[in-house]
């Protein structure tokens, strides 16, 4: 979650060899499931750690992440584009400042406040995740557009491109890498915050972590933690692959 509440890097971090993350995730998951097979579980553990329940929680977790990330993209990217247009540019700086300051808000706070004010459940958790992950995507969309070399825009205008053509053929493709980095951060964030969604009855793998703490049962706790971490690693890996794939050639 981390990059999370921290400052979002515009540039990608030092890359791990791309196979490390998925291999690690698979090893963690297999190890965990193997352990559950051989460990002697007590009645509480047996009741909680049903394969179907694990699968359900995993799917719930993925649903939370996918739904909220898609919504974030749909909202933050157009908004970021709008805020970087010349007429709205004066709004850009205060919004960015606000977005940066917003990162000081703890994710659990957003989740809980929303639960108290509006309600609990899957869709409210999605709303909380969207609010929380909006900032990095919005910010990176704006930064990505701002960092496009002015002389390219000048050249485009000088050739007779309309403002819209400059946006679609020059600015947006060149902002894509930075925007993708923001979306990747949002994804990672969402995996983390979704783990907390168990506190507002939205399910997910966090359920096992919570139960593990409440019942003081390490196998339950570890199942939740390890699977959440494996999911985060896989999501990060897939996001990295997508980033490489979607980056325009020639850059």
């Amino acid at each position: 979650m981390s990059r999370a509440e921290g400052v979002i890097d515009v540039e990608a971090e030092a890359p791990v060899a791309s196979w490390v993350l998925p291999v690690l995730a698979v090893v963690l998951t297999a190890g965990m499931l193997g352990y559950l097979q051989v460990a002697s579980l007590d009645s509480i553990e047996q009741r909680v750690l049903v394969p179907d329940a694990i699968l359900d929680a995993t799917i719930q977790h993925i649903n939370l992440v996918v739904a909220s990330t898609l919504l974030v993209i749909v909202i933050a990217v157009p908004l970021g584009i709008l805020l970087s247009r010349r007429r709205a540019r004066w709004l850009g700086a205060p919004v960015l400042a606000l977005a940066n300051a917003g990162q000081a808000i703890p994710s659990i706070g957003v989740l809980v406040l929303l639960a108290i004010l509006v309600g609990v459940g899957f869709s409210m958790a999605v709303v909380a995740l969207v609010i929380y992950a909006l900032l990095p995507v919005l910010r990176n969309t704006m930064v990505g557009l701002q960092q496009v070399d002015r002389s390219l825009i000048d050249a485009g205008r000088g050739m007779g491109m309309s403002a819209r053509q400059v946006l679609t053929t020059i600015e947006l493709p060149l902002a894509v890498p930075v925007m993708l980095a923001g979306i990747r951060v949002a994804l990672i964030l969402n995996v983390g915050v979704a783990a907390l969604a168990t506190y507002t009855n939205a399910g997910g793998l966090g359920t096992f972590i919570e139960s593990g703490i409440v019942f003081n049962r390490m196998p339950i706790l570890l199942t939740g933690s390890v699977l959440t971490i494996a999911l985060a690693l896989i999501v990060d890996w897939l996001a990295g692959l997508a980033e490489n794939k979607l980056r325009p050639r020639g850059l």
Partner: protein
Amino acid sequence: MSDSFGSTALRLDSASPPNDVMIKLEGLRKRYPGQSTDSVRPLDMEIRRGEFVVFVGPSGCGKTTTLRMINRLVEPTSGQIWIDGRDVTHTDPDELRRHIGYVIQQVGLIPHLTISQNVGLVPKLLGWDKKRIEPRVDELLDLVGLDPAQYRRRYPKQLSGGQQQRVGVARALAADPPVMVMDEPFGAIDPITRERLQDEFLKLQQRIRKTIVFVTHDIDEALKLGDRIAIFGESSQLAQFATPLEILSHPADDYVRSFVGTGAAIRRLGLLRVGDLEGAGGGAGAGPALRVPPETTVYAALEQMLDAGAARLAVDGEPGAERSLSLQEMLAAAARGRQVPS
């Protein structure tokens, strides 16, 4: 300066361009909001069809702003812009720019598009058929000295700075615009490549005869390239607008004199061709003679004479029209030297 003058005369051919006006600026003025003085003071200027005009001056003199007002990347505060007899001060700027080639110092090739896509941008904007764009792109790459087969599919980052600017020129020429505006196009290129690009560009201009407005802060580049040079003063007003020879022979004031710098008399020799030297009879004189073609500049001829230890110059010509000049005669003629036709 050396060699840069040697090739200057190459651009000249005998036919003078027609004398009609291609670009006319009338009282063109720019004042940015919130400023108390004009960035460009009211400016009147006429640029002929096929003429190569260079704006030169110190930074902040308004030369770039003036240039950018011609394709309306900067909107004038007042005044009018006429291109080819049409008032374009208030026409659709995007449409206007599609018919004016634009080359800038940073080149501005779009990094995620291939070379051929970059060159084909304006034709595409103009709605050309793909079948028409492709051969046009190849033709242009050829024209700027890049092998289409080799470069078509590359990305800008895979090219050197000089090659990138060749593509920049090709891109500006893509839709065959009658007018080109160029903002320090060779300013960021290393001196040796720059000189080569200048020479090639002059040759190219001889073939394509565009009306060119070219901004530079380098007076040597201006003298080398321009048919006429507009020297801007620091207070954003025109100090002199004349041919290179005129500027070297008769600087309008001390400002122009100091801007041109030292060695004006020597530099003039780079603008004169031996074939145009007046006087000088035909008879062979004493001493060894150096044989040169008539389009050689006086500067280059003198240099070669020094090298060869020759005291006389033999100018090639039609049989019977060869001439021979002594050093004395050359210098005397050069001092009177008239402007080479342009």
